[in-house]
C-alpha cells in the first residue's frame, strides 16, 4: 500500500489543478451545509428560549382584550381564587443610551416576578430551563434582592458590546439595575430584571401578561377561563415549537438550497476525480502490469479520499461558521420581519459540526467516486481489454424520458414535501440526461450545417463534440446550477410581481392606523376637522370546526376579519377563485371569503361551507364564495362583513383612512404627530407600507440568492476548469492547428467561442427545465410549505439576463487561463507533436 500512496502523493505535483478542484468543491459543499446547520440550530435554540423565559411547561398566558389593561388587582384576585400558578410578566421595548458609544439602542426589556417563580418552583418542582433549579434560583435571587440587578446573556452582551457592572440609562433618564452578564440558558435577546424594578424604572404598574405555569388540562383551562373577568382572555402561548413550525418553511428553503449546493459540489468532485483518475490511468496501468491488484489500488484511492475528507471537513465547517456569522444579521432581520421571531447565536458545537461535515464529505466523496471508479475498474481489468463502454447516446434520451415520466408522476401525485423534492430531483436528472444526449448531437448538427469553407468553425464544432463527451459530468453540474438559478429567479420574480400587484390592489386606503387604544383614537379623531373617510377593521379569533379534533390544543385557530363591501374594496380584492355572485352573497351575510392558506390546508373549495366558533358563542356556518390571495400571512383567515362583528366583543385591528386630498392627509399626519395620543398609535402611509413590505420581501430571498450564486459560480468554475484541463490534455490537436498557420489569437478566440457555445447550449437545455422547476416550486413546494401559490410570470428579460450571466461566468472564469495558454511559445507546444 505504501508505494501506491507514495505514487499518489508524487502525482499531485502534476495534478495540482484537479486536486484543488476536489478540495474547493468539498470545502464549499461543507461550508454551505454547515452554515445552514448553524443558522437552523441557533434559530431552534432561540425560539425555545425566547418564547419561554427561564421557564418550561408554559403553554398558556392571560392577556387583556384590546382597549383594556391587565392590572395588579386582576392578578391578586385570581390568586385569591386559588390560581397560584400565575406569574406576572412585563414586556417592553425601550431606547437605552449605550454606555460606551453614547448612541441610542432599542432593546427589549423583560420584567418577571422572580419571587413568584422561585416560590412556585420550590413548592411545585417547576423546571427552570436546563440549569438546576437551585442554580437558577440563586441567579434569579439577585434580581429581586438588593442590590438589584438586570441580567443579559453573554452572547447578546458581546453583540451589543456591554459588560457586567454597567448601569444602562434609558433615553428619558431613569437607570436600569446594574447589568450582570450571566449564562442562564433561558435568556434570549433581552435584558431581564425583576418586574418590580422594571415597573419602578418605567413609572408604571402595568402587567403585560400572566404566564400560566405547570401542567394544564381541559378541566384546569376551563376553570381558569370561567374565572377570568370579561376584559381578560386566555390564549395559547406562541411556544418555541410554534415558532419552529412558523419558520419551518424558511429553514427548509435554506436547507434545500444548501443540499442543492452540496449536490452540485459533489458533481464537481465527481468530475475532478474523473479527471484525476484519467491523468493517473497510465501509471495505474503500469502498476497493474507490475502485479499490483485492483483491490490494492481501490484501497489506496479510498485512503486518499478519507485523507482529503479529513482535511476538508474542518476547513468547510469553519468556513460555514464564518458564513453563518456573516449572514446572521440578515437572517435575524428576515425572521423578525416575516414571523416576528428573534434569533440569537448560541455557542457552536464544533466537534459535532466537524463530525457532521466529515460524515457528509465521506458520504459525498465516495458517492461521487462511484462512477469514476467503475470506469477505472473496467480499464484495470487487464485481461478484459475489449470491454466496450456503451457510448450510445440514445440511451441518455431514454433515460431522460423515463426520469421525466417519474418526475411527472411524483409531481402529479405528490402528497408531501419528500415527494415534491423527489419530483424536482428526478426532473433535474432528466435534464442532465437530455443534456448529455443533446450536447454532442447539437454540436454534430451544427458541424454538418456549417459551410465547408468555414473550416475553423467546423473544427470547433467537431472538437466541441469531443469536449462535451469528456466534460459531461462538469456540464451536468453547471446545468443543475443553471436550472436552479433560472427556477429560483423566475419563482422570486413571479412572487415579487404577484406581491406587488396584490399589495397595489389591496392597499387602497391612503393611510393605516393600528393601536391598542382604538377608543382613544376615535375620540381624538372626532375632534379633528379633516375631510376623510374612516373604515374600521375588526377582528377576532375563532376555532375552525370543519375538521373535528380530539384535543383542544390541536384545534385550528381561525382569524376572522371584517372586510368592507364598497365598490372600491370589491375591486381591491384579488381572488384566486370566486363565485359569480360573490359580493351579493357576502354582503347578505351568507357567504364568507377565505384566504388561500385556509383553503389549501383544509382542502376547502368554493361552494363548501366553513364552520367556526367564537369562544363560547354558538357555532356558525357560512358558504365559501371566494378564495383570495393573502401572501405573507401564515394564518388561516376568513373575511366577513363588518356588521357581523357587532354581536361579538371584537377588537378593532386597524383603521383604514381615505382622504379627499393629499393636503388633508398631510394635515392629518401633522396633527397626529403633535397630538398627545401619538405614542399610542402606529400610523403608516400606504407607500411606506408597500416599501416596507417589499423590503421584507427582498430580504427573505437574499440568503437563498447568495447560495444560488455561489453554487452557479462553483459549477461554472468546475466546467471551465475541466474544459481547460481537457484542453491541456489535448494540446497536440491545438498545436497541430498552430503548425498549419492558425494564429495564436485565432486559437484563443476559437476556444472562447467553444466555451460560449457549450454554456449557451447548457443554458438552452436548462431553460425549459428551469421553467418546469419554477412550476414545481410554486405549485408544489410553495403550496405544501406556505399554503399559497401564484401565477408563473415568465419575463424574457430575466431569462435573457440569466443566459448572459451563465455565458459571462464561463468566459470570465476561462479568460485568465486562456490568456496564459496563449502566451506559451509555439515551439513548446509543437514538441508534443514529436516534431
Amino acid at each position, binding site marked *: 500500500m505504501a508505494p501506491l500512496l507514495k505514487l499518489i502523493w508524487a502525482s499531485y505535483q502534476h495534478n495540482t489543478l484537479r486536486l484543488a478542484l476536489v478540495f474547493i468543491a468539498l470545502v464549499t459543499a461543507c461550508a454551505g451545509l454547515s452554515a445552514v446547520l448553524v443558522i437552523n440550530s441557533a434559530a431552534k435554540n432561540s425560539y425555545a428560549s425566547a418564547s419561554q423565559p427561564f421557564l418550561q411547561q408554559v403553554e398558556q398566558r392571560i392577556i387583556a382584550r384590546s382597549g383594556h389593561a391587565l392590572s395588579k388587582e386582576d392578578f391578586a384576585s385570581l390568586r385569591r381564587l386559588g390560581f397560584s400558578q400565575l406569574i406576572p410578566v412585563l414586556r417592553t421595548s425601550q431606547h437605552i443610551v449605550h454606555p460606551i458609544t453614547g448612541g441610542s439602542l432599542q432593546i427589549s426589556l423583560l420584567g418577571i416576578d422572580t419571587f413568584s417563580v422561585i416560590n412556585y418552583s420550590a413548592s411545585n418542582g417547576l423546571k427552570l430551563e436546563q440549569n438546576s433549579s437551585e442554580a437558577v434560583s440563586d441567579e434569579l435571587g439577585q434580581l429581586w434582592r438588593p442590590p438589584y440587578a438586570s441580567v443579559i446573556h453573554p452572547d447578546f452582551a458581546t453583540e451589543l458590546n456591554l459588560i457586567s457592572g454597567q448601569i444602562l440609562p434609558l433615553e428619558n433618564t431613569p437607570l436600569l439595575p446594574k447589568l450582570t452578564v450571566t449564562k442562564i440558558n433561558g435568556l434570549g435577546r433581552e435584558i431581564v430584571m425583576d418586574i418590580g424594578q422594571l415597573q419602578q424604572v418605567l413609572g408604571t404598574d402595568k402587567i403585560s401578561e400572566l404566564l400560566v405555569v405547570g401542567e394544564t388540562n381541559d378541566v384546569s383551562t376551563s376553570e381558569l377561563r370561567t374565572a377570568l373577568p370579561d376584559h381578560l382572555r386566555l390564549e395559547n402561548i406562541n411556544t418555541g415549537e410554534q415558532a419552529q413550525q412558523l419558520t419551518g418553511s424558511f429553514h427548509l428553503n435554506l436547507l434545500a438550497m444548501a443540499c442543492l449546493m452540496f449536490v452540485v459540489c459533489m458533481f464537481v468532485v465527481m468530475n475532478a476525480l474523473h479527471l484525476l483518475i484519467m491523468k493517473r490511468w497510465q501509471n495505474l496501468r503500469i502498476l497493474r502490469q507490475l502485479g499490483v491488484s485492483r483491490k490494492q489500488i481501490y484501497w489506496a484511492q479510498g485512503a486518499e479520499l478519507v485523507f482529503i475528507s479529513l482535511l476538508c471537513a474542518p476547513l468547510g465547517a469553519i468556513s460555514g461558521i464564518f458564513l453563518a456569522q456573516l449572514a446572521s444579521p440578515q437572517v435575524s432581520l428576515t425572521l423578525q420581519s416575516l414571523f416576528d421571531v428573534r434569533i440569537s447565536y448560541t455557542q457552536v458545537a464544533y466537534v459535532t459540526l466537524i463530525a457532521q461535515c466529515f460524515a457528509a464529505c465521506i458520504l459525498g466523496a465516495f458517492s461521487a467516486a462511484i462512477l469514476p471508479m467503475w470506469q477505472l475498474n473496467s480499464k484495470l481489468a487487464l485481461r478484459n481489454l475489449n470491454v466496450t463502454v456503451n457510448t450510445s447516446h440514445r440511451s441518455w434520451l431514454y433515460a431522460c424520458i423515463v426520469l421525466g415520466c417519474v418526475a411527472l408522476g411524483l409531481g402529479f401525485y405528490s402528497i408531501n414535501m419528500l415527494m415534491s423534492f423527489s419530483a424536482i430531483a428526478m426532473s433535474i436528472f432528466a435534464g442532465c440526461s437530455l443534456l448529455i444526449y443533446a450536447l454532442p448531437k447539437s454540436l454534430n448538427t451544427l458541424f454538418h450545417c456549417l459551410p465547408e469553407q468555414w473550416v475553423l468553425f467546423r473544427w470547433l464544432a*467537431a472538437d466541441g463534440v469531443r469536449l462535451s463527451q469528456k466534460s459531461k459530468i462538469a456540464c451536468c453540474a453547471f446545468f443543475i446550477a443553471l436550472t436552479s438559478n433560472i427556477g429560483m429567479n423566475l419563482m422570486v420574480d413571479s412572487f415579487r410581481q404577484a406581491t406587488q400587484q396584490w399589495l397595489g390592489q389591496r392597499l387602497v386606503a391612503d393611510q393605516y392606523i393600528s393601536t391598542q387604544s382604538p377608543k382613544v383614537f376615535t375620540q381624538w379623531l372626532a375632534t379633528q376637522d379633516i375631510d376623510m373617510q374612516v373604515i374600521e377593521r375588526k377582528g377576532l379569533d375563532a376555532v375552525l370546526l370543519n375538521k373535528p379534533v380530539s384535543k383542544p390544543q390541536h384545534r385550528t385557530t381561525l382569524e376572522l376579519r371584517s372586510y368592507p363591501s364598497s365598490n372600491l374594496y370589491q375591486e381591491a380584492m384579488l381572488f384566486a377563485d370566486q363565485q359569480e355572485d360573490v359580493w351579493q352573497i357576502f354582503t347578505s351575510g351568507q357567504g364568507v371569503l377565505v384566504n388561500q392558506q385556509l383553503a389549501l390546508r383544509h382542502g376547502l373549495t368554493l361552494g363548501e361551507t366553513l364552520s367556526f366558533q367564537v369562544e363560547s358563542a354558538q357555532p356558525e356556518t357560512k358558504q365559501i364564495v371566494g378564495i383570495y390571495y393573502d401572501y405573507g400571512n401564515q394564518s388561516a383567515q376568513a373575511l366577513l362583513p363588518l356588521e357581523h362583528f357587532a354581536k361579538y366583543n371584537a377588537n378593532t385591528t386597524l383603521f383604514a383612512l381615505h382622504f379627499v386630498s393629499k393636503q388633508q392627509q398631510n394635515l392629518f399626519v401633522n396633527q397626529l404627530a403633535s397630538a398627545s395620543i401619538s405614542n399610542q398609535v402606529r400610523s403608516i402611509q400606504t407607500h411606506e407600507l408597500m416599501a416596507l413590505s417589499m423590503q421584507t420581501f427582498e430580504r427573505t430571498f437574499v440568503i437563498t440568492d447568495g447560495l444560488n450564486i455561489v453554487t452557479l459560480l462553483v459549477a461554472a468554475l468546475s466546467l471551465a476548469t475541466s474544459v481547460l484541463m481537457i484542453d491541456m490534455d489535448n494540446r497536440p490537436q491545438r498545436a497541430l492547428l498552430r503548425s498549419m498557420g492558425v*494564429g*495564436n489569437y485565432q486559437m484563443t478566440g476559437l476556444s472562447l467561442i467553444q466555451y460560449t457555445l457549450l454554456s449557451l447550449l447548457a443554458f438552452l437545455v436548462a431553460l425549459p427545465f428551469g421553467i418546469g422547476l419554477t412550476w414545481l416550486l410554486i405549485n408544489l413546494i410553495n403550496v405544501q410549505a406556505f399554503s399559497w401559490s401564484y401565477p408563473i410570470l415568465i419575463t424574457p428579460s430575466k431569462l435573457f439576463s440569466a443566459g448572459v450571466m451563465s455565458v459571462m461566468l464561463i468566459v470570465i472564469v476561462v479568460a485568465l487561463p486562456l490568456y496564459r495558454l496563449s502566451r506559451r511559445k509555439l515551439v513548446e507546444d509543437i514538441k508534443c507533436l514529436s516534431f
Partner: protein
Amino acid sequence: MIEVSGLVKQITDGYSHKCILDKLDFHLGEQQSVAIGGDSGSGKSTLLHILAALDNADKGVVKVAGLTLNSMSETQADQFRKKHLGIVFQQFNLIDCLSVWDNITFPARLNGLSIGTYHNDLLEQLGLSSHKHKLPVNLSGGEQQRVAIARALSHQPSLVLADEPTGNLDDNNSQNVSELLFGLCKKLGLTLVVVTHSPKVAAFADTRLLLQQGRLLNTPNQTSNFVSA
C-alpha cells in the same frame, strides 16, 4: 528554395551554453528533395523548427521561398506556415474529430482554395478513396500517414517538411509511404526536406545531409552515404 547561411542556435542551461546548430550553411533549389540524418541531439529537429518558422535562429540568415524567416513577426510566421508549408509528422497527428476528407482538405480551405479534382486525385493516388468519410481512429498506421501526406500537399505548399515520416511504420508501409511522399512531391514540383534515420528512406532523396553535433558533415553537393556517424 532554402538558403541557410551562418545559422547558429544555442540553448542556455543555467550558466552553460550549448550550441545546437553551429554555423550551418547550405542551399537547396526548388523541386529538390533532401534527407537529413544524424544522431539524437545532433540538431535535426531544431533545424526543422527553424525552417518551419516555429523557432528563431540566434545568428545567421534563413530564407525559404524568398522570405527571410528571422525577421518575421508571429503573424507573418503563421501566414508563412499556412501558405508555404506542409508538415508530415512521425506520429501522423491527424485531427481526430474530423473525417479523412476533412483532414485532407483542411489546409486548402484554411487558405481559401477551392476543393476539386486535385484533392480527389490526391485521395485516389494515395489509395484513400474508400476511407474518405472515416475518422482517423478507424485507419491503420500506414493509412493515417498517407492521409497526413495528402494533408501536407493539399494546399500545394512551396516546402514540405517531414519528420521521421516512417518512424512508426513497418517495412512494407515504410516503403509504400516513402514512394508516395517522394513521388508526389517530385510530380507536383515541391521541395521536400525529410529528417530520417532510415537509409532506405534517405535513398529516395535527391540529396542526403548528415548532421553531427550541430554541424553538417557534408554539403548537398557532397552527398553522404547516409551511414549514421
